[in-house]
């Protein structure tokens, strides 16, 4: 019963992440879009490593591939790597203060962006500056708020 409800909350947050990650933004702000889905995945893996793991990352990544129209498996790969790293780190991440967590999130999302840039450069659309790392910085800036909101959700609905 409890499990069931928790599942729909987790699914709901990922759906919200999908919506936020394809909200239209003005041209100048396109690079400022944080990687919502990756951040939400990091939170759930950190909070509930026994429920949300590599399997979830793969399924969520597939959805993101469809949304972004990227080659199938690109987001699966990058989210799998992020989820795996978070699984290795979650005990330490939970102990960190929010600022330090945010820095770790920046590193994790930065790895995500690097994988993206590598695959894109294989296909011929390479970014010619380091601007592709900007979403990682934005994700780090927004992390404390996202963390507090998701923790509130998790406690309110007793997802465990």
């Amino acid at each position, binding site marked *: 019963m409890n499990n069931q409800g928790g599942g729909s909350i987790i699914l709901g947050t990922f*759906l919200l992440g*999908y*919506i936020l*990650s*394809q*909200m*239209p*933004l003005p*041209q100048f702000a*396109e*690079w400022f*879009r944080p990687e919502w889905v990756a951040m939400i995945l990091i939170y759930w893996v950190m909070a509930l490593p026994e429920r949300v793991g590599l399997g979830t990352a793969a399924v969520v990544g*597939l*959805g993101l591939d*469809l*949304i*972004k*129209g*990227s080659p*199938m498996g690109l987001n699966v790969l990058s989210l799998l790597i992020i989820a795996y790293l978070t699984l290795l780190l979650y005990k330490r991440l939970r102990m960190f203060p929010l600022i330090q967590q945010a820095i770790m999130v920046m590193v994790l999302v930065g790895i995500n962006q690097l994988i*993206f840039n590598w695959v*894109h450069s294989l*296909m*011929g*659309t390479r*970014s010619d500056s380091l601007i*592709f790392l900007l979403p990682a910085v934005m994700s780090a800036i927004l992390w404390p708020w996202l963390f507090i909101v998701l923790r509130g959700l998790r406690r309110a609905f007793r997802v465990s």
Partner: protein
Amino acid sequence: MHQTRSYLSLLITPLQWLVDTPAQVADELSDVLVDRSQLTDENRRLRQEALLLKQRVLQVSALTAENVRLRELLNGRQRLEQDVFLTELIGVNPDPFQHQIILNRGSEDHAYVGQAVLDSGGIMGQVVEVSHYTSRAMLITDSRHAIPVEVNRNGFRSIALGNGSVNQLELVHIPDTADIREGDLLVSSGLGGRFPRGYPVAKVVSVQRDPGEPFALVKAQPSAMLNKSRHILLVDMPPQADVLPVTPVPVHGEKVKPKPEEFESPESAGE
């Protein structure tokens, strides 16, 4: 593989519609919340525009008839008729690496991969992926896109490449001596068989002739409003095999058996 993808895309179609809803609501609201004087103003303007356009259509029909006669005299082929479908933009690809838009017509509405996408200003791009109710079109400014163009003034042909910035196309391999200037209109040349011929693509904004470089550096600005248009046209081109009929000509009594169609529509252009 493509089939799987289009079926999987069905899952996110409602999500795409949902994301588009606020924009749609805002559109409706701005339609409702206007006062009478604005409406009458708009009405008058549209009527004037309609009158002007009608006058032009009258001219065009006379010119078309003349064109057909001249082509018959020259023994040329008929110009191909093109059907146009109206469609609406429902999303933009969130990935800034890719200039793609999402349209609300899919394979159920007979959209197909390779279809040319226009707006009122000119060519926007081509359809690259089709799902059942939505499709994805690559814009001409995407850095993986290229479109064959010609200068409207003198017919000089070139290829316009997207370079990843929204308002710029680059023309490559233009000799320093080529007759191309600022302000020239580039129209689609129809070579390559992907795009219909004669639609405006871009306007040349700068020509740099550096004696140290092998080619001139020509930049152009797309004439379609790539990041503003919401109402978009899909052009239905007749299949390529119709344009290039392959019928072997018998030579000096030697009998040549007609071969089955060898030419298929090229799939690689622009991908």
